[in-house]
């Protein structure tokens, strides 16, 4: 009987305690961040969408190799001697045309592993995280600033150059062989 009465009392008392707590919260101001109008300040080293400063990219393919999910796709074409590609901001000379530099943000897992090996620090994380799309293909970002035709042209140029060189090499190989076979080919 004592137990019974105690249970009854506890039942009522605990409910009242709970109700008191929730009643207090009725008048606590809301903690909600009204998202589209108010935005939370992101932490300093926030990892979000990648950005590639293609002017600095030397096409070394290190980020692509570092990527654990292979979401970076790089295609490069060697420059031919007459072309001037300019230098990166920290003074490195560029030797490759980056004809294709895509990052598939649908696959990307935002781990920042691609950022560290980059010798020119041209790939880095930004604070942009709002880029939902209606189509999945829109999440594949192309960073190369060459148009398709230009890229095609570079490829053809390089192929022509290569063919030229082959030809020269073939010519050089046949000509001096008879004179001095022991000389190494310095071409």
């Amino acid at each position: 009987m004592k137990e019974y009465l105690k249970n009854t009392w506890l039942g009522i008392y605990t409910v009242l305690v709970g109700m008191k707590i929730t009643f207090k919260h009725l008048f606590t101001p809301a903690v909600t961040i009204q998202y589209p109008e108010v935005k939370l300040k992101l932490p300093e080293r926030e990892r979000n969408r990648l950005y590639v400063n293609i002017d600095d990219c030397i096409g070394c393919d290190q980020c692509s190799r570092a990527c654990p999910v292979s979401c970076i796709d790089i295609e490069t074409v060697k420059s031919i001697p007459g072309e001037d590609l300019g230098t990166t901001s920290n003074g490195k000379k560029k030797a490759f045309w980056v004809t294709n530099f895509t990052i598939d943000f649908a696959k990307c897992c935002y781990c920042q592993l691609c950022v560290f090996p980059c010798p020119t620090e041209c790939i880095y994380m930004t604070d942009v995280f709002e880029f939902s799309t209606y189509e999945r293909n829109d999440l594949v970002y192309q960073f190369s600033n060459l148009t398709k035709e230009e890229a095609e042209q570079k490829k053809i140029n390089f192929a022509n150059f290569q063919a030229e060189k082959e030809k020269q090499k073939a010519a050089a190989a046949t000509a001096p062989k008879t004179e001095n076979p022991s000389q190494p080919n310095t071409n």
Partner: protein
Amino acid sequence: MGLLDKEFSDGNIVVANVEDLLNWARLSSVWQLGFGLACCAIEMMATSASHYDFDRFGLIPRNTPRQADAIIISGTVTLKMAIRIKRLYEQIPDPKYIISMGSCANCGGPYWEHGYHVLKGVDRIIPVDVYVPGCPPRPEALLEGLLKLQEKIRNESLRKKS
């Protein structure tokens, strides 16, 4: 069947105004199916909790697909789960919407190359309306995805597409 199944001819003023109302109703009360798959689900729960508050946009989780309007595919869709997702999707009455949340749902994420057990993107089994990138996306990113979805609903039309 739902009203959206019927099509009206273009230039119908009444339909145009009614349509705005109907679209408004649908976009302000997108009830999500209470359904979480993996780590993105934690982020989805955070979105419905006090700090981000899904309820501001009229989203409340419903536990049965019959009363829901949207699924948020939050996480890795394993091949086993894919069957269930498909079935849940089919049980939702029209009009229904799908938000694919996070890399795994978008295209398989880290498992897209070697995952023998993961569906490479939930859009292989059900039509996705909005893809929210991130691994997992911030709650704000999910909210932005929801806003995109609302924008999409706002532009839907009962009329015949000319």
